[in-house]
C-alpha cells in the first residue's frame, strides 16, 4: 500500500495526470463548442476514433506527422460537415445522428483495417506526433509542457474561455445555443454558427484521438474505450465552462492514473473496481456537489 501512496504523491504521477487529461479535455472542449451553439454532439467518441485511425493510416502511408495531421483533421472535418448538414440543415434528431455516427465510424474503421492491413485488431507501429524538444529541459514540468497536445490543451482552457466569453464570435455562437429565435431577429446567421460549433468539435476531438494513437504508437480497435463519453460527462460536470471542464477532466485523468499506478504496484485491488471509479465519481459528483446543471437553453433543439 505504501508503494501505491508514494507512487501517487510523486511528480511522475502528477505528470501522468496532466498527460492523461489531454484526450478528455480535447473531447470535452470540442463537445462544449458544439453544445454552446445548440448542437448535442454525442459522437465525440466516433470523431476521436476516426481521427486516431486516419492519423495512423496516413502516418503509415506518408511517414510525415504534419501531413498525417492535416489529412486526418481534414477527414474529420468532412465527417463533421456531414453531421452538421444532417442535424442543422435537415434538422434530424441530434442524438440519433450521433449514435449513427459512432456506429458508422466503428464499423468503417474495422472494415478498413481488414482491407488495408489484413488485421481486424492492430495497425503496424507508427511514430507519434513529435514533442517540443526545448521545453523538455524545464525542470519538473518539462515532461508535461513538451507534449505538444498536452500543452495545447492547457492553453485551450484559456483560449476557449476567451473565445466563448470575450469575443464577438463567442457571443454569437452562444446566442445560437441559448435562443436562436432571438439571435435571428438580431441578424445573426444562426445556422452558420451551429456549423462552426460542430466543425470545431470535430477538430478538437480529432486531436484527442491523435494524442491517444501517438501515445500507443499504433491504432487498435476499440482503443478510445469510452473516453469520448467521459469527455461528455466532464463537460456536464464542468457546467459547460472551460475552466470547470478542465477540473473535471483532471479528476477523471487522476483516476485513470491511479488505476495505472495500482496495476504497476501489483497491489491486491481488482482493477475492475478502479475502472468503475470514473463512472461512480460522475454520478456522485453530479448528485452530491454540482446539483442541477443547466445546459444552454436551446441545446439539442433543431433550428
Amino acid at each position, binding site marked *: 500500500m505504501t508503494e501505491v501512496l508514494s507512487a501517487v504523491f510523486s511528480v511522475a504521477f502528477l505528470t501522468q495526470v496532466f498527460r492523461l487529461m489531454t484526450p478528455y479535455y480535447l473531447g470535452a472542449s470540442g463537445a462544449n463548442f458544439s453544445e454552446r451553439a445548440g448542437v448535442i454532439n454525442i459522437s465525440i467518441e466516433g470523431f476521436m476514433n476516426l481521427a486516431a485511425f486516419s492519423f495512423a493510416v496516413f502516418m503509415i502511408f506518408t511517414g510525415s506527422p504534419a501531413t498525417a495531421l492535416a489529412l486526418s483533421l481534414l477527414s474529420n472535418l468532412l465527417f463533421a460537415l456531414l453531421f452538421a448538414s444532417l442535424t442543422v440543415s435537415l434538422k434530424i434528431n441530434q442524438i440519433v445522428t450521433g449514435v449513427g455516427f459512432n456506429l458508422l465510424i466503428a464499423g468503417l474503421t474495422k472494415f478498413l483495417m481488414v482491407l488495408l492491413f489484413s488485421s481486424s485488431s492492430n495497425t503496424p507501429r507508427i511514430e507519434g506526433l513529435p514533442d517540443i524538444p526545448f521545453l523538455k529541459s524545464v525542470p519538473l514540468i518539462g515532461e508535461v509542457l513538451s507534449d505538444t497536445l498536452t500543452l495545447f490543451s492547457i492553453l485551450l482552457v484559456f483560449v476557449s474561455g476567451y473565445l466563448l466569453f*470575450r*469575443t*464577438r*464570435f463567442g*457571443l*454569437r455562437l*452562444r*446566442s445560437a445555443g*441559448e*435562443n436562436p*429565435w*432571438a*439571435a*435571428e*431577429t*438580431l*441578424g*445573426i446567421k444562426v445556422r452558420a454558427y451551429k456549423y462552426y460549433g460542430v466543425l470545431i468539435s470535430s477538430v478538437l476531438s480529432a486531436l484527442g484521438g491523435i494524442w491517444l494513437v501517438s501515445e500507443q504508437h499504433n491504432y487498435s480497435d476499440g482503443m478510445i474505450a469510452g473516453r469520448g463519453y467521459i469527455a461528455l460527462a466532464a463537460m456536464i460536470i464542468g457546467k459547460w465552462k472551460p475552466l470547470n471542464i478542465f477540473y473535471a477532466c483532471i479528476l477523471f485523468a487522476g483516476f485513470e492514473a491511479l488505476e495505472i499506478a495500482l496495476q504497476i504496484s501489483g497491489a491486491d485491488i481488482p482493477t475492475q473496481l478502479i475502472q468503475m471509479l470514473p463512472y461512480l465519481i460522475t454520478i456522485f459528483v453530479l448528485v452530491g456537489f454540482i446539483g442541477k446543471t443547466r445546459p*444552454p*437553453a436551446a441545446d439539442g433543439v433543431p433550428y
Partner: protein
Amino acid sequence: MHAVEFRNIGKKFGDYSANDDISFAIGANTVHYIAGENGAGKSTLMNILFGLCRQDSGTVSVFGETVNFRSPHDAIAMKIGMVHQHFMLIDDFTVFENVILGMEPVRGFQRIDEAGGKRKLQELIDEYSLGLDPDARAGDLGISMQQKVEILKLLYRESMILIFDEPTAVLSPSEVDSFLTMTSNFRSAGKTVIVISHKLKELERSADKVSVLRKGRLVFEASAKESKIDIDAVSRAIVGEAEIPKPHAKTEPGFKQPVLLSMKNVTYVKDKRRLLDGLSLELAAGEIHGIAGVEGNGQSELADIVCGVEKDFEGDAEPSEISAAIVPDDRHKKGMIREFSVAENLLLKRKGLSFHTGSTLRADSINVMEEFDIRAPDPDVPSGSLSGGNQQKAVIAREILSDEEIIVFAHPSRGVDISASAFIASRIIDERNRGKAVLLISSDIEELLALSDRISVMYKGRIVRTLPGELIKKCAGEEGAEYRERLMAELGRAMTGVEK
C-alpha cells in the same frame, strides 16, 4: 414625409387572408396605434414591415424608399426595430450582452470592447431613464425591466421606427404610465412609434393617429390632430357589426354564504425569499374576491397554494387540503399542452371519462366548444394553433367543467381581445352566481372594479388593504365616475406600497 407607407398589402396563409389590400401611411415623428381584434392582421402587417414575413402583393416604403426586406436584418439596417409581445431575450446573457448581440463593439481581433460598449449603454440608459444595470442577468429581471432591455436594444441600434406589439399587456398601471411617457419621449427625440394594442384608454391618451384593422382589412382611421380620438368609434370599428356583449348581471346577495377558504398568517419562503409574508385571506361561496397588485408581489404563489400545487407553507389554512380549479397566468407554460388537440386539452381534468372513444370525445368537445365560444376549425387541431383568446376560453372551459367549489382566475383577460374578454367576464360572473368562490387575480384595476365583490391589494407578500363591496358598488354607472377615479388612484397607490 411618411415614415412608413403601406400600399395595397396582401398576405394569405393558405386560404386565409391575413392582410387584404391594406393601404395607409404612418407619419414620421408620430405615435401611431394599430388596433383590432386578435387575428385581425395587425401582427402580420408588422411582421411584413419588420422583414419576418413577406407580403404576397403590394409595396412597403420606408422614409419614401420602397423596400423589400428578406429578413429582420434588412429592416434593422433601415433603422426599424421591434419589441415582440413575447420578448426575444437570452435569459442567460447579461443586459449588456443582450443589447450588443448582432452589433458588437469590437476592438482588434473579435474582442468585444466591454468598457466602450457599456459606456454607450449607460448614456442611453440615462438619457431615457431606463434604470437598467448592464451587468444584470436578463433572466433575473422582472417583465417591465425585460421590456426596457428590449427597448434598449432598439435605441442602441439607433432605430428611428420603433414597433411595439401589445407592450402594456403585462404591465402594472404605474408601469403603463411610464411606458406612455417613454413613447412620448421617443417622439420628442424624433423617432416614430408604432404600437399594436387593443387598450383603448391608452390609445386615447397617447395616440396621434390610429388605424383599425378587422378581418385583414383597414376599416377605420382617426387622427388626434383636430380633436380627441373618438374611442367609441374606434371600439365599434374594432368589433364591427358584432355587438360587444354586456357582461352578465350579478345576482344578490354576494358573499354572505359560507366561507370556503380561510388563510391566516400564511408565510411562504422559497430560495430564502419571503414570497408570502403573513398573508390572511377569506374566500366565501358566491363572491368574486379580487386580488390587485403589481405582478411579483406573491400573487402567483398565492394561486399555487390555493389550488394545492404548493403545500410547503407555514400558517393556518382551513381546510388544510385545499383544492381548486385554476386558470393560470401563463397559459402556455401552465394552462395547456399546446401540442395536444383542443379535445385532448379539454379532457385533461374531466372526471368520469376515463376511457374515451374518438366519436364521443369529439361530440363532447364540440358541445363544449359551442358553449364556451371556442372558435377552432375542429376539436382535433393542436391547441397551439388557436388565437390567444380561444386558447384562454378553452382553459377556462376545462377549469369550470372540473366543478371545483373554488376557482382561481389569474389575469384571465391578458392578451385577449375585447369580445373574448367580455365573454370571459360573463363566465366569471356566472360562476359566482352559481355559488362558486372565485379568486380573481389581476393587475388590471378596471377589470377588478367591474367584477369583484371585494378587492384586496397585495404588496410584498401580504394583503395591505381590502376594499369592501359597498365602495366598489358606489363607482358603478355614470354618477360614480368621479368616485371611481379616486378609488383607482387609491388602489394604484396601495399596489406600489405608498400609504394612503
